[in-house]
């Protein structure tokens, strides 16, 4: 395995443009985006809102999203009435399995809204979330893949 330092080491045999690309840095990535949690009201319902990424290497139709698990500060949250907002359109989590025509492109962020009876207090919170997807083409059949993510997120 090459030394990590080789990423930014001078490689004079490579064109300057290629070396510049190799020196780029990326953002950390998981189901949970590195964004504050927001206490919000959507359509008159109070809840929390989180930034999320699709957990795959490719775009998926929303019908491949099987489920969601969410814990905040160790407490399981009820996600039955959660909404996923993608490209300005909100979908009920319950409706996703019917949405084979709506594509979540792999580079696009989305927002997850989860109704909650009480707002989250200021400060940091431990968020553990799992997105459950079905990859639509695995040769051996329909398999559910669990994609867990954990972050400490602050309330905005």
């Amino acid at each position, binding site marked *: *395995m*090459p030394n*990590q330092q*080789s*990423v930014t080491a001078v490689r004079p045999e*490579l*064109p300057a*443009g*290629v070396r510049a*690309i*190799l020196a*780029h*840095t*990326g*953002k*950390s*990535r998981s189901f949970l985006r590195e964004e504050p949690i927001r206490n919000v009201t959507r359509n008159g319902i109070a809840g929390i809102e989180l930034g999320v*990424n699709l957990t795959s*290497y*490719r*775009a*998926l*139709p929303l*019908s*491949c999203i*099987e489920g969601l698990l969410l814990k905040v500060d160790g407490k399981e949250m009820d996600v039955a009435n959660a909404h996923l907002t993608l490209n300005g359109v909100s979908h009920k989590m319950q409706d996703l*399995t*019917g949405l*084979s025509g709506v*594509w979540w*492109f*792999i*580079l696009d962020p989305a927002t997850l809204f989860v109704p909650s009876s009480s707002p989250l207090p200021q400060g940091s919170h431990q968020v553990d979330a799992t997105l459950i997807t*079905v*990859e*639509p*083409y*695995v*040769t*051996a*059949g*329909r*398999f*559910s*893949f*669990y994609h867990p993510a954990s972050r400490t997120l602050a309330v905005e």
Partner: protein
Amino acid sequence: MTANTGLKLGVSLHSFTSEYITYKWSLEDMLQLVSVLGGGVEIVGPAHQRGYPYLTDEFERIFKSSIERWGLTPTSYGTYADPFMLKDRDLNEDELVDYMVPQLQSAAQLGFKIARMQYFSYPVIERLLPWAEKLDLKMGYELHVPLMIKSEKTRVLLDQIERIDSPYLGLIPDTGIFARSIPQFRLEATRQAGVSEELLARAVELWNAKTPGEEALPELLRLGLRKQNIGNIEFIWGSFGHSEPEELKDILPRVIHMHAKFFSMKDGVEPDVRFEEVTKVLAENGYDGWMSSEYEGQGGVDTFELVRQQQAMITRFAARYAPK
């Protein structure tokens, strides 16, 4: 590009998934990197083409600009049959055709000469053939784990290919089928996902004994494998296979493209995949198509360097076994 044989090197942008999804490298960044990694470029429709399965003017222009700027050759386009995209049932044949025709059109319009087809395309391939002919696009079934060269499912594909006997239908072997061991990083990831040492050891035993996934998984479940770890086990049986490189010779006349799948490099070689033997068969039998480096190891490493080393390895082996 190798000097002594016709085998041509390129990269599948799938290799750079970690960098792509963390926004380290854009599509155009990755295409520029291909210019120093053999020049042949392969993309994955639903990963790289916004608007997939349909081709937008914007994507076409962005893609072709980079192809022109860096002098690249579009080699193979990754199509998907996605039969399980609906919850309640599999796609029927009409739906498969409706889903795949735009992908073939995308591929041809982008300048690709080859489309990677999944095994699931099998029932509708004859309906897709007129499109392939019209678009001058060769369709190749990917022989990807768990399809081994001698698998039953592969036999079905080979029979169809022979019966149709068209230059527009062939094979794309993925070197993941020529594994000798499960890569360390995959074992570690399985451990991290919460699979116990005992279960992991038994999984390795079962894999080493070439147990089919349909038998291994039920046994592991009986031994206590949790539901949320089924995907981790499926990952192993879906990535690393037991074909013999010598078997490649028998199907070589139908091979239109190669996926050089790899997971790591150590001291200039890939420890878990039998590249020397595979390249020997290709070189000795005059394979002059493209070979896309397809890295599928862990993220957060110097992927560019790994692909460069892997291509150097293939070049070395190709030169060693080229007919004199």
